[in-house]
């Protein structure tokens, strides 16, 4: 005798505790197993790209803050680099160092948040999440000292950064650099060797190297699938070619590897910040750029390695004060492109964990 079963379709989201925003998944389950996935985007479409066409080049910096709100610094950096490339602006050395320090701090903050939410999705009752937030809070405090805001920073400007860092920033940065490795060690001893975490994340949501290249993934997602691709190394921008750091690579491309890559990247970021603090020299922090920039006609694509992957800005200028077109290549959106390959065949609990391991932010997906 066989029992008659029916697949059941569930709307996971747009309001769901684990979809990290207003992301909707139409999932078809056979029992607990995922049979089909149909992602629905657009609940958070704010028209950033269109808005950029009516803003002046400096005003767009405030829009980029709101793309991926857990890594505003990296968004700012990606945008101002595109404008600088378009206008061929020479950026002072000290400004470049400051920008790299800020971006790497932001990378640590973003990865802390990704890790915390990943373990929270596995069901740890918010404890690793709160530990991660405790550490992230210190970085946000640093940003407040640096530029007066914690999340929507608007710190960088075409041609440099807005203000030089005050003395209190360097003192607090030194303290953070000393304590952060201890924090990461503690987080690792709580999570990395935990057998339940291993059982939930090893060999779950595997993407092969070929698949992830074909899906144009980037960032920790790609590197976890053992593809050595980091724009900081392969196409060094700012001062990354002067710095000595490693790019962590995963083995299997599963959830655990993505987690591990992020943990290792945090350690590498600390190394980078340490080198920057040693190498930074006095000087101006902002090139002489007019408040209203009118770039020469032309177009440019410039990308950086944001915490979540390759963040690129494609700007078209028609010599007016605002860009003719501003296309954003956002890593969160691209990383979600292989959702079906990752999810189909796994249980409902795995679905949540895999979604958590992608580490997407809806503000960036819908733009």
């Amino acid at each position, binding site marked *: 005798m066989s029992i008659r079963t029916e697949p059941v379709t569930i709307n996971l989201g747009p309001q769901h505790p684990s979809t990290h925003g207003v992301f909707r998944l139409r999932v078809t389950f056979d029992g607990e197993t995922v049979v089909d996935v149909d992602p629905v985007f657009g609940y958070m479409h704010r028209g950033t790209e269109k808005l950029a066409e009516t803003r002046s080049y400096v005003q767009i910096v405030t829009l980029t803050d709101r793309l991926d709100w857990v890594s505003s610094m990296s968004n700012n950096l990606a945008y101002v680099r595109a404008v600088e490339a378009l206008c061929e602006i020479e950026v002072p050395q000290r400004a470049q160092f400051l920008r790299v320090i800020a971006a790497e701090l932001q990378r640590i903050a973003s990865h802390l948040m990704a890790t915390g939410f990943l373990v929270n999705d596995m069901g740890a009752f918010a404890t690793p999440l709160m530990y991660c937030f405790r550490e992230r809070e210190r970085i946000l405090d640093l940003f407040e000292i640096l530029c007066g805001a914690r999340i929507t920073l608007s710190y960088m400007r075409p041609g440099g950064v807005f203000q030089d860092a005050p003395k209190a920033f360097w003192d607090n940065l030194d303290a953070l650099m000393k304590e952060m490795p201890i924090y990461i060690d503690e987080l690792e001893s*709580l999570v990395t060797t935990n057998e339940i975490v291993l059982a939930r994340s090893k060999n779950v949501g595997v993407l092969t190297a070929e698949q992830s290249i074909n899906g144009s993934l980037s960032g920790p997602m790609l590197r976890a699938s053992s593809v050595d691709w980091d724009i900081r190394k392969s196409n060094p921008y700012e001062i990354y070619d002067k710095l000595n750091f490693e790019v962590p690579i995963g083995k299997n491309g599963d959830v655990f590897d993505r987690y591990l890559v992020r943990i290792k990247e945090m350690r590498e970021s600390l190394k980078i910040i340490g080198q920057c603090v040693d190498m930074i020299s006095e000087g101006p922090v902002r090139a002489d750029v007019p408040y209203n920039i009118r770039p020469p006609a032309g177009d440019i694509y410039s990308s950086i390695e944001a915490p979540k992957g390759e963040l690129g800005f494609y700007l078209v200028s028609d010599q007016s004060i605002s860009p003719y077109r501003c296309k954003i290549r956002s890593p969160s959106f691209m990383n979600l492109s292989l959702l079906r390959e990752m999810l189909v065949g796994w249980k409902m609990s795995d679905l949540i964990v895999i979604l958590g391991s992608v580490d997407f932010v809806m503000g960036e997906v819908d733009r």
Partner: protein
Amino acid sequence: MYGLGLLKGLIVTMKNLISPGRMFTIHQYPDRKISPLGLSKLEGKNVISWGINNPVKFLKSLLGLISVPDKIAQSPRFRGQEFTWYEQRCTGCASCAKYCPLGIIKIVTSPSGKAVPEGQKYAIDVFDIDIGRCMFCGLCVEACPYDALHMGSGFEEGTYQRKDLVINVDRLKSAPKKPSTWFRPQLEELGYDPDSGDEITWDQIGRHERPSLSDQEDKWVKR
């Protein structure tokens, strides 16, 4: 060995439970409950001698009935909600309104004919900043050619109605002059800290050194 990781996790959480140094730096704005230990420390005394002298207070704080004000120590660069505006410096050029990405600043001016030391100036009839839509990017401050508008450092602008969030010219005039040092980091080196209640007058805020009296005479009287 298998199972060791689970035990390691338990040890980590227990360490966080028993060591107070691993807490968040928590500020329970606007006030927090205080223990006898903290209360005696506030008064600069030993717990035991303080407890013997004030047994009622000791007992009350032990029961958690005494609270003291608590506020986050904020950076002087903190971009707050209350805008600081110097009417002596403002000429009514409306650069701030033009450069605001959201267009939330509304300025209506009329010719005043009043002569001021540098240049002509408009009388400002309306200066509305709708902080309900403001995102505190500070581009208006950056755009101001006369350093008249600055980000404030307060954050207690909560109201019951959205229309109360519009800061008009009277409120701007009467607001405490506590600008954020985000646009003028030079003020930090002078020891200015808006958190401690310092105020900055209009002639200290400018981006140039204040001219000495002889310089002004050279410029204005002897020409």
